[in-house]
């Protein structure tokens, strides 16, 4: 009879008993803390490796997707740019329409005059002269000397005309003189321009009381402009000793730097009094 308890068999038997014991302990949950401590570093390492691998795979496996996304991005950017340019164009049209509606409203509120709306297309080349060019001329009934206004007030008068354009001398020009009256003080004077575009008030009698902010309207004297058109407001007044008249500075009601559309009063004919001037 063979001896079953040889050293070799005994060693195998002990090994099987140990493994079976470990398995029973593991299944019964007694080894969980030990597993947790020993496995968690491995899981972390596995996670790191897996993450790096996925990143590596994405990096080399996704150029086609990136190119597609970039193309889509460029297409969308182009669409956004087109939409933005359309918005800008629509805003410009809206601003132009607002100006024209305001001018139309002004014309309705002042039915005594007939108006021709015109767009400002240029400014004078010489900085000493304050003139603008408008896009309406003799073909539209524009004639020399016609007053030019906006919904705010007086702009100037027609200085030269060709068939489809006209040149307007602004009231800020050094050669421009407008006869005016001060609304509250009820005195008359003259508003004249300068080479720098500033407007001054002259020929106001010394005894007159003129307040700051006084409204200045055209008087109609001289026949160059129709009466009662808003010109501006008095900014300051100075009176020199022994002077016959007061002088002052005027804030024009029209902003000449942003002038884009004007109205020409077409049914007013300026009176030429040049032969009567000595």
């Amino acid at each position, binding site marked *: 009879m063979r001896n079953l308890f040889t050293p070799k068999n005994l060693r195998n038997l002990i090994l099987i008993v140990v493994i079976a014991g470990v398995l029973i302990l593991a299944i019964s949950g007694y080894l969980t803390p030990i597993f947790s401590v020993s496995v968690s570093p491995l899981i972390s390492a596995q996670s790191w490796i897996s993450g790096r691998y996925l990143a590596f795979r994405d990096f080399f496996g996704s150029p086609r997707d990136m190119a597609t996304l970039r193309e889509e991005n460029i297409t969308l950017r182009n669409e956004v740019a087109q939409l933005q340019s359309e918005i800008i164009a629509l805003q410009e049209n809206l601003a132009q329409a607002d100006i024209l509606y305001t001018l139309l409203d002004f014309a309705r509120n002042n039915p005594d005059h007939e108006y021709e709306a015109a767009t400002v*297309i*240029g*400014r*004078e*080349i*010489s*900085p*000493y*002269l304050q*003139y603008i*060019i408008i896009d309406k001329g003799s073909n539209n009934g524009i004639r020399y000397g016609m007053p030019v206004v906006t919904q705010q007030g007086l702009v100037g008068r027609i*200085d*030269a005309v060709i068939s489809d354009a006209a*040149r307007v*001398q602004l009231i800020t020009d*050094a*050669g421009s003189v407008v006869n005016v009256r001060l609304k509250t003080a009820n005195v008359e004077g003259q508003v004249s321009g*300068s*080479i*720098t*575009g500033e407007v001054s008030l002259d020929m106001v009698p010394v005894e007159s009381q003129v307040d700051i902010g006084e409204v200045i309207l055209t008087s109609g004297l001289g026949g160059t402009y129709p009466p009662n058109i808003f010109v501006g407001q008095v900014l300051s007044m100075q009176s020199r000793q022994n002077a016959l008249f007061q002088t002052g500075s005027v804030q024009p009601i029209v902003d000449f*730097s942003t002038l884009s559309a004007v109205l020409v009063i077409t049914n007013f004919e300026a009176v030429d009094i040049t032969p009567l001037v000595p």
Partner: protein
Amino acid sequence: MLIYLAYGMSFVLAMMLQYGVFSRWMILSGSPDLVLLLIIALCLHQKHRRFWILILIMGGVVGFVSALPFFIPMVVYMAVYLASFGLKQRVWQTPLLAMFLLTFGATILVNFLSIAVLFIQRIPFNFSIALVNVVLPSVFLNMFLAIPVHAIMRELSVWLYPQGAQI
């Protein structure tokens, strides 16, 4: 013919830009004069014997459109044309310097002719205000714009006049 057409087109373009854009570029009360700069650059780069006729026509057009007296642009442009001869012979190696010299001189000339006209027309003005608010800013703006205008017209002249061509 191509030369006249190119110069005419550039003049018309400069007029449109001047009236539409550059007249609104202001420092104090001074503004640049693109047409004057174009005339100066043309005079420095032209190689045409009867170029003065074109200069007179351009002066006439500006005199017609502008509210300035008719003769001022013609006088200034012809003065620029004549001065460009001397400058081209003396400072021919530095055309940009000639451009600056002519720009400075022509701007001063056109400003003082304008002031003289105001004086003759008895329009009241203060000379020191005109000097500070109009003349000096205009000179500065013209000198500033002289560089790009000179560069553009040089390219145009290279295109119009192949090397060595003398008409």
